[in-house]
């Protein structure tokens, strides 16, 4: 349907249209400027030596290996915690307690948690995991904190994945005499799994970029070794980047830009994986 147009009002309409469109152009140009700025500053510093070296007080010797290893440790452990807990919670809300008062209360709670600033999760982690549970400033404490941070999103996306499983599948299973849990475990979860995995990876890619909560629980900003277990102290890519940005020397700023490129490459890989899984899932759904 086309709007009616006439005379001067047409001019105003066109001007408004151009103004509205230009906001999108500004957003795109900003994204472009950000990417080119980081590439321009960091590409020259990015090489094999940078990826495999440990932190150093001399910028030209410093590398990202310890932070990259720390990020991978934390993220794998976060996934191991958030996946079972998130899926279990989503299955309960979607399949069992659909109409109960308790389920409704839990739902509201999850929605509120999703909007709590991430630094508050850091204070929670500091109070509960680092001190009360005496985990210290370890990979484990960091992963527990990030898992709580990621859970609301994992639960939300898992519920969406569960909802795409057609009702007839459940009914067919019940008709064959399966119990509710047998139906969920053998029919519903396998069908929803690619969708669940996509949601998990996307929420983890969020967690990978988180800096504030891990600084708050006391992840170290200078650490000359990679973690060797879940109780080891650690640092992660965003904290290393922050540490380099905060130093006055220009050479460290170059390191920060190169670190950002490594972080962005990691995020792109994770997102590409999620998109790949989603596409495969959709093709399966159609056939």
């Amino acid at each position, binding site marked *: 349907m086309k709007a009616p147009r006439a005379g001067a009002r047409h001019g105003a309409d066109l001007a408004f249209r151009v103004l509205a469109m230009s906001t999108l152009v500004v957003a795109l140009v900003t994204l472009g400027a950000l990417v080119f700025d980081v590439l321009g500053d960091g590409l020259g510093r990015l090489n094999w030596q940078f990826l495999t070296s440990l932190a150093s007080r001399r910028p030209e010797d410093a590398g990202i290996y310890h932070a990259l290893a720390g990020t991978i440790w934390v993220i794998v452990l976060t996934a191991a915690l958030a996946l079972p807990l998130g899926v279990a919670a989503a299955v309960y809300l979607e399949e069992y307690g659909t109409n109960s008062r308790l389920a409704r209360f839990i739902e509201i709670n999850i929605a509120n948690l999703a909007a709590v600033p991430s630094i508050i999760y850091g204070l929670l982690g500091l*109070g509960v995991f680092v001190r009360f549970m005496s985990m210290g400033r370890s990979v484990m404490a960091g992963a527990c904190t990030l898992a709580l941070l990621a859970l609301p999103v994992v639960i939300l996306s898992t519920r969406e994945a569960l909802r795409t499983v057609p009702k007839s599948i459940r009914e067919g299973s019940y008709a064959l005499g399966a119990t509710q849990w047998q139906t969920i475990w053998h029919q519903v979860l396998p069908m929803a799994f690619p969708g669940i995995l996509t949601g998990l990876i996307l929420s983890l890619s969020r967690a990978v*970029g988180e800096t504030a909560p891990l600084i708050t629980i006391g992840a170290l900003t200078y650490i000359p070794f990679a973690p060797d277990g879940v109780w080891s102290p650690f640092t992660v890519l965003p904290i290393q980047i922050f540490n380099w940005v905060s130093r006055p020397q220009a050479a460290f700023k170059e390191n920060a830009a190169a670190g950002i490129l490594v972080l962005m490459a990691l995020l792109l890989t994770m997102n590409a994986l999620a998109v790949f899984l989603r596409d495969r899932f959709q093709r399966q759904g159609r056939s």
Partner: protein
Amino acid sequence: MRPRRLERLIELALLLSAALSVLTTAGIILVLAVETFEFLREVPLFEFLTGTEWTPLFANPRFGVLPLIAGTVLVSAIAMAVAVPMGLLSAIYLSEYAPENLRRVVKPVLEVLAGVPTVVYGYFALMFVTPLLQRVFPQMSGFNALSPGIVMGIMILPLVSSLAEDAMRAVPRGLREGAYALGATRMQTALQVVVPAAFSGITAAFILAVSRAVGETMIVAIAAGQQPRLTANPFVPLETMTAYIVQVSLGDTPQGTLEYRTIFAVGMLLFLMTFALNLVSTWLRERFREEYA
């Protein structure tokens, strides 16, 4: 009867996982409340909330939180001054003007903008936007409120845009067609019919964006400096509530000391502020949903 009992057991385990979220909320409130209570035993609430000097790490400490609140409000206001008009206009464009295939290209790009880690935005504010702004405002300091505010606005833009667009697309088609039938242009329809009709949904988006800006940490920790200052001048260094928590966390403040407890007291204030904003936003959205149900 055995499998039945197993079924009940599994249901209970699933319920406990779901209840972990309630436990998380309780944990947040408990941790913040306990340390804040200890803090308030040494610093009177009135002094904390109305004092104009924040120097907890000095030899002669003062615990007036107003400079941190002022810093947070100033940076958030700058961010909203960017995100509100731009977010609203881009939402109007996407909802009322853009052809479907353009929407399909633009929306993922906006999602990318929302997915960039905040530490990267901080770098961008400090290393790119601040030098650029200094050419226009030579009196501007290397650390300031303006640059992180603008960058934060760009960061929040996708959130405002997509929530406001959802609200506008939920406005029934009949209202637009009525306006067109009366001879209104697309601009008149968008501004005088669609936006007012979606008003509570759009306001909910704005409020959620304020909450995001207030809680945002890394951009301000990197680009705004770390000097608590009661000012409305966007060109000088200042400190926000979140940046203060980061500053103390980076140091070696021993636990159990008063300085250590300040981050929980400031965190409590931050939590209460964002929680209130989120509640209002949810309430507005629910109301909007009822209107057109």
